[in-house]
């Protein structure tokens, strides 16, 4: 089992969800994040003072998938989450030892 963690642009979350579903993913989770990287943040004003806000709003997608789904998932992400401008984000893949479905207690691939 592999865990895919992707930081993407917030407004693309629904497209990504649809694409991952098409790629066979049965479940996933989304968390709000702020990211720092090559993409510049923005300037905020507060009573004449200027603040450089370095962080950019991102969304983190977490999905644990079967080993053989990983390529399809990554290419779905590359297709849908890419705008070509700095700040599209990153995908990280790591290994998961086990998964358990709380409702049934099923574990391993069956739990996904």
């Amino acid at each position, binding site marked *: 089992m592999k865990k895919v963690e992707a930081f993407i642009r917030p*407004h693309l979350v*629904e497209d990504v969800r649809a694409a991952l579903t098409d790629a066979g993913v049965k479940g996933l989770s989304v968390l709000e994040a702020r990211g720092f990287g090559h993409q510049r943040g*923005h*300037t*905020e*004003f*507060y009573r004449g003072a200027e603040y450089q*806000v370095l962080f950019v709003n991102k969304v983190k997608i977490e999905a644990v998938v079967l080993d053989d789904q990983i390529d399809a998932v990554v290419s779905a992400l590359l297709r849908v989450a890419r705008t070509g401008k700095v700040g599209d984000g990153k995908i990280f893949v790591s290994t998961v030892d086990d998964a358990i479905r709380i409702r049934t207690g099923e574990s391993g691939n069956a739990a996904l």
Partner: protein
Amino acid sequence: MNRRLMAFLTLLLGIVPPAFAEGSGSIDSGDTAWMLTSTALVLFMTPGLALFYGGMVRSKNVLGTIMHSVFAMGLVGIHWVVIGYSLSFSKGNSFIGGFSHAFLNGVGVEPMGSIPHLAFVAFQGMFAIITPALITGAFAERMKFRAYVAFVLLWTTVVYAPVCHWVWASDGWLFKLGALDFAGGTVVHMSSGFSALVAAIYIGRRVGYPKDQILPNSLIWTVLGAGMLWFGWFGFNGGSALASGALATLAFVTTQIAAAAAAMAWAFAERIRTGKVTVLGVASGMVAGLVAVTPASGFVGPMAALAIGLAAGVICYWAICLKPRFGYDDSLDVFGVHGVGGTLGALLTGVFASTYWNANGKDGLLLGNFDPLLVQALSVVATAAYAAAATWIILKLIDIAGGVRISQAEEREGLDLTQHGETAYHL
């Protein structure tokens, strides 16, 4: 001192003999108390509108949306005393007023009816402020701030002032025809509603509309805004009697009844169609009822107000449900509420008006007179056509001069950051 400076100082100090004494009555403390209260109430409607609209947009646009209302408090506030009041109410022709009251020249605290002339100026000024602010709901979430500023200035000059003059100045052509508009059904709601329709079409749909889920950042603001609007509307309609007493009371009571009735009618219609009564529906219904009763408020009785409110709730809801069929993106339904509600109210005024309730009004269709309805219909058509055409031209000009719409990338980031460099929530 040279003459230029002299003139400037005179202006600044306002030491100018009133050009003409408006009326001849004396000032009544009770009437003035009610007019000052009403004026304050109408001013309070604009922050109310800011929240009503602000709550419905996405959190990245809430400050920008609020700004579209509150900035008008300053911008039109100044415009009004510089030129707006004069163009609206000073002697001119049947289409527009003149410049005799520019910079409030010749306007002081001399009586006008039973209140000081300046109280009338202030009261009317609050109407001028909120009217363009109403329109901004149509182009919410995608207008350049600079374009908004230009739009408000031009629209107030070219649409508001003339239409106000037509209907409420003694030499206005609709006034002379006997059109009934107690508190601004045509002047405020139809003019803004039809302009909104044109603006929504002109500027085009928001990125992602209607595919994306565009969910309100917090309807709590919207409900609070609706409450502030209802509260302030007592001044809007009640103050339009320009005095305390029986007529103000009538307008106050019809306002109350129509708002309540429309909220219930909208809720009911919603319940029938979707099975649920929403908080936004009730808040929207309140506003629809307030809009529809505005022209009628001082001309009809309480039960007619009930009928107007019920009609407004159902018809405005229905108008809003039809919107998607036409494909334009009137984002906060300004046309559905103010355009449709204002038109409905203007026409129903011609139906329900009765001299039993206001001797200076008319007897309408239900009392067997077809004429008033015709005049109302004419004022509806004229206002709608004029406002729509003028709005299109204004937007075109602004577009040529510098563009009306922000870029797609800016739209994605939101008005708050791109137009104002601010973020609404740091929780």
